[in-house]
């Protein structure tokens, strides 16, 4: 198009470009700042730091000084691993059961399973605490795992359903018409094809569990402390610079895991679909 660039078009490029740049700056800078701050030699959150040291990482890894943080991190990983495991099994089965059905009941069930994504998490956390207390179950890591499973399973259901909807039903039919049993077809045809979708969902569920606050806030106790809750406590009381070191580790871990998931299952492509 040989149309001359009008003032409107130039202003468009300028305004949209500038705001988009601002958006990237807003997204990225706080993360970079926290990583830099975690190496400060100062006792406060002053930025930029006046000098650098590894003291906060040393304190964080020191067994006697940071025992509670270590225990909280251990609990967090255990809960995330187990709630994701249960979520993957139940969520994949549910997606297999509902994805190909066009019935109203199936669509209602599907929205029901996805509803924890939009319901206020804090209302569910309180409801779960009252429920378990009033039916007489004492707080334990098992309850936290159950609560996390409910709020993270939607990620598995969503990505697995998306993978199933792209699956050619003819593959299934031809496998079964060649004499393969239903279970053999599931194991050798369907599951390998939808595996990347399940893996992406499992990863998102795992990360959501590590990150979860509203459920842990109500279901965890001093004995079953979780990392985000402990960090919240550390922020509310004295501003402990070890939080910056924990953040540095979490940022690095999330970055590496995300690279891995991107290479293996194309994570971001699945999140866009």
């Amino acid at each position, binding site marked *: 198009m040989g149309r001359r660039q009008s003032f409107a078009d130039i202003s468009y490029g300028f305004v949209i470009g500038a705001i988009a740049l601002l958006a990237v700056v807003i*997204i990225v800078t706080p*993360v970079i700042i926290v990583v830099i701050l975690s190496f400060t030699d100062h006792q406060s959150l002053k930025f930029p730091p006046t000098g650098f040291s590894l003291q906060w990482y040393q304190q964080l890894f020191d067994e006697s000084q940071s025992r509670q943080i270590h225990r909280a991190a251990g609990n967090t990983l255990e809960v995330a691993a187990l709630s994701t495991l249960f979520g993957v099994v139940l969520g994949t089965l549910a997606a297999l059961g509902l994805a190909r059905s066009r019935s109203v009941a199936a669509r209602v069930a599907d929205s029901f399973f996805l509803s924890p994504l939009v319901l206020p998490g804090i209302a569910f956390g309180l409801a779960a605490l009252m429920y378990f207390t*009033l039916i007489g179950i004492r707080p334990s890591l098992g309850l936290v795992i159950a609560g996390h499973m409910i709020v993270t399973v939607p990620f598995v259901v969503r990505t697995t359903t998306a993978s199933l909807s792209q699956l050619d039903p003819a593959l299934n039919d031809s496998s079964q018409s060649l004499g393969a049993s239903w279970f053999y077809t599931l194991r050798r045809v369907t599951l390998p094809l939808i595996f990347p979708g399940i893996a992406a969902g499992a990863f998102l569920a795992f990360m959501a569990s590590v990150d979860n606050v509203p459920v842990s806030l109500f279901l965890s106790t001093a004995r079953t402390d979780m990392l985000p809750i402990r960090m919240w406590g550390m922020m*509310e009381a004295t501003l402990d610079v070890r939080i910056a070191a924990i953040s540095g580790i979490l940022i690095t871990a999330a970055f590496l895991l995300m690279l891995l998931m991107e290479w293996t299952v194309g994570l971001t492509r699945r999140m866009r679909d």
Partner: protein
Amino acid sequence: MTLKPAEWQLALPLGLAFASLFLAPFLLLFGVSFFNDDQITQPGFGQWIKFFGDPFHYKVIADTLLLGVKTVAATVIVGYPLALVFIDLGPRLQRVLIFIIVMPLLLSVVVRTFAWIVVLGREGVINTLLLHLGVISEPLRLLQTELGLVISMTQIEMPLMLLPLISVMSRIEPNLRDASAALGASRWRTLFTVIVPLSMPGLIAGCLLVFASSTTAFISQSIIGGVRLIYLPLLIWQQSLVVFNWPFAAVTSLALLVSVLSVIAALSYLGRRAGGAIHG
């Protein structure tokens, strides 16, 4: 072939888990709200009357919903242009940008909230920068203000806006934009008459997720907002885990649930109408 279950039966285990661990607790929450005392022994409407008889609680509801609206508005204003730029990039740059967008989503909300304490604090990045440049002579108070909270929430919730927006925008036929330009429309006009209407389903999906997430974001609200800015999640936490008045906390939770869900229902109704207008 004997093993073949009816397909819907595969959803039963998760259905049972949801019925016993999700639906039942919410029904119980509803039940508990109809007790007058915190020992949960005397049934009655006392807590409902106490909650809705006090104008302070209407203000808390309004503030919570307004916080959601402001966060949604900020993420749209800052995020929409980024989505516009995204769809014009080549595949390689798109992969880099989507990585940058998704990355914060996988970072703990506590970490993101902490990052904003560092940025907005008295000795934080913004104050250091502005003092250094001589724009201000005293550090600005940004933490424990609604402005600081909305700025932080904009970054914290941005990925939830961008992901659905980008996925819908990427599917807009590029020819439509070219046709609009060929017919003499400026790029602004093409934006508002072609792209915005076509991206409406993604925009509404993004608004919905950001609204749901920001109204229940307890950690960011309590850490950045502080104790002077009171929103429903803080009230729920105080009443249930500090004061131990469960029936009152239950009423507050239901107020949060109903007010957030009604906004979401309205948004998704708009979304379906927008989708129908384009496809039908």
